[in-house]
């Protein structure tokens, strides 16, 4: 059944990504077609090495596809110069990493302020905004702590705040719960749904943690560089993926 939703926030068309050359060539993505919609949490799931993270990198404008197009916010990322993609990410993309990747010598508030500082805001203003957001996420008593003094769950909260502080249109999360226990992972996902989902913002999560599948609005299943299916929360399956998956 075809969707009749509004314009997607991000669209992939026939995206292929090849690493290496000659005999060492690896085809990580094989003709990916995918739409990501605002106000939704989309999960990319599949076994290790199926190309989830590569697709996430392409969608976020970090990697260029070998062939095909990625159109995000009406902008074709594949035709952009590297520095323009960097500027695009600076404004429009928030990141949550598997290992949090917080700067260990910066306090929680300073870490959250980093995207604002990258955009050119002063440290003072950035930290003030960061503290407000951390307060909203129940971290008001930890704003001046270094990451080393925070638990895994607290660090991931800081990472989520960092991904949201500059109000991006696309938030990409790479295995956000894999370093956390089940309870903390659940809490983090609730936090993400509560704070990140907005009408003009899409959240994309790469995971193979089945415990958090319930939080997805739509779930794209991948294997061997292809999308096998895209299932929606209401149980509908996007038919356009069925045929190639069977054919493959």
């Amino acid at each position, binding site marked *: 059944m075809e969707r009749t939703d509004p314009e997607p926030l991000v669209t992939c068309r026939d995206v292929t990504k090849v690493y290496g050359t000659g005999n060492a060539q690896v085809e990580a993505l094989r003709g990916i077609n995918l739409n990501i919609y605002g106000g939704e949490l989309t999960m990319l799931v599949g076994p290790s090495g199926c190309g989830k993270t590569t697709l996430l990198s392409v969608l976020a404008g*970090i*990697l260029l596809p070998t062939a095909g197009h990625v159109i995000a916010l009406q902008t074709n990322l594949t035709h952009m110069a590297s520095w323009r993609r960097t500027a*695009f*990410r600076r404004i429009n993309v928030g*990141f949550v*990493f*598997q290992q949090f*990747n917080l700067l260990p010598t910066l306090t929680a508030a*300073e870490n959250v302020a980093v995207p604002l500082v990258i955009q050119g805001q002063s440290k003072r203003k950035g930290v003030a905004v960061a503290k407000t957001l951390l307060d909203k996420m129940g971290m008001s008593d930890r704003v001046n702590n270094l990451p080393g003094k925070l638990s895994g769950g607290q660090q991931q909260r800081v990472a989520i705040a960092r991904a949201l502080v500059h109000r991006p249109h696309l938030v990409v999360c*790479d295995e956000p719960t894999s370093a956390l226990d089940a309870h903390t992972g659940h809490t983090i996902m609730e936090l993400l749904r509560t704070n990140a989902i907005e009408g003009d913002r899409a959240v994309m999560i790469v995971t193979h943690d089945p415990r958090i599948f319930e939080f997805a609005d739509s779930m794209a299943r991948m294997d061997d560089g292809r999308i096998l299916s895209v299932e929606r929360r209401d149980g509908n399956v996007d038919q356009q993926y069925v045929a190639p998956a069977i054919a493959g």
Partner: protein
Amino acid sequence: MNWIALKMLTGNQGKYLGIILGIAFASLLIAQQASIFCGLMRQTCGQIRDIQGADMWVMDANVQFVDDVKPLSDTDLYRVRGVPGVSWAVRLYKGLARSRLADGNFQQTIVLGLDDATLVGAPPRMVLGNLFDLRKPDAVIMDLEGYKLLWPGEEPRVGRRFEMNDHEAEIVGICKASRTFQTFPVVYTRYTQALDFVPNERKVLSFILANATPGANVDEVCRRIETQTGLRAVTGEQFGWITMDYFLRKTGIPFNFGVTVALGFIVGTAIAAQTFYLFTIENIKQYGALKAMGAGNLSLLSMIVVQAMLVSVIGFSLGIGVAAWFGNMATAPSSRLAFYMPWPVFIGTGLAVIVISVLSSLLSLRRVITLEPAVVFQG
């Protein structure tokens, strides 16, 4: 972004100190060795600097440095006096005598014989006694360092007698004199008195000290002296450079010090570059995350430059500070070490540190520029 760079750097105290110490070590070694070299070179022409009041030094045309005395005949003095533009010219004796101490030991001593009438070339700084007591029989003025060398641990005093080449001399004054390259005691006396102390020779006039008439061009007068007498005539400053040039060309001193300075530079660069690179590699995921979040290459380069500048300034300050402290000890009255840190050494060391930090950060810069932000998604 700069505050992030500084926090990243200072937060890793081990690496931070390692880089600073590498640069400090390099700047210490460079500044200290260069200053010792300058000090030694300065000592070679210390006696020239101490002879004040004369515009020109006149000598045999083959003299290569201040200790390379080739005696002139007395008539040369009159020929120099006859050159137009020469206001006055006087004799200067310079030679070595063997001093005999009360305990029977001997010590080579530099004897400077000053013109009897004018005492031109007399020591500028008297510590004890009166310069004009040189007119007394057997009178000599000895430099303070020489006195301490001959009579260690004893308070300097005038009236002390000792023998030079079996002739009795009486110390009528103690003066300050620049340290000499050979570190021998320096004894000032009258020209005629000096001839009593040294072996009899047919020609004993070592140098002629001369002044140009007021308003005359000294270089032009030197040229005239050379043309008319066949002797060599130079200013005191020129003679100093001629002397230093001789030591630079004819001895291994510059090479030896050059090797140490180069080693300091190489070792300092190696330590600083390696530690700085390791620091960058250790933070590569952080740089990758910053890049993914939209930090441009220019911002990241500026972060690395700020980090390099901070460690360079601190390392340089520490290194130059320790070198200056060493210099302070080396130039203490009790020390006989050579040390002189002119401003070019300071500037040169600073430039070397800049080169070290540039070389050190180049590797890191390259690593960060070529870094794919996708690295943050690698587990």
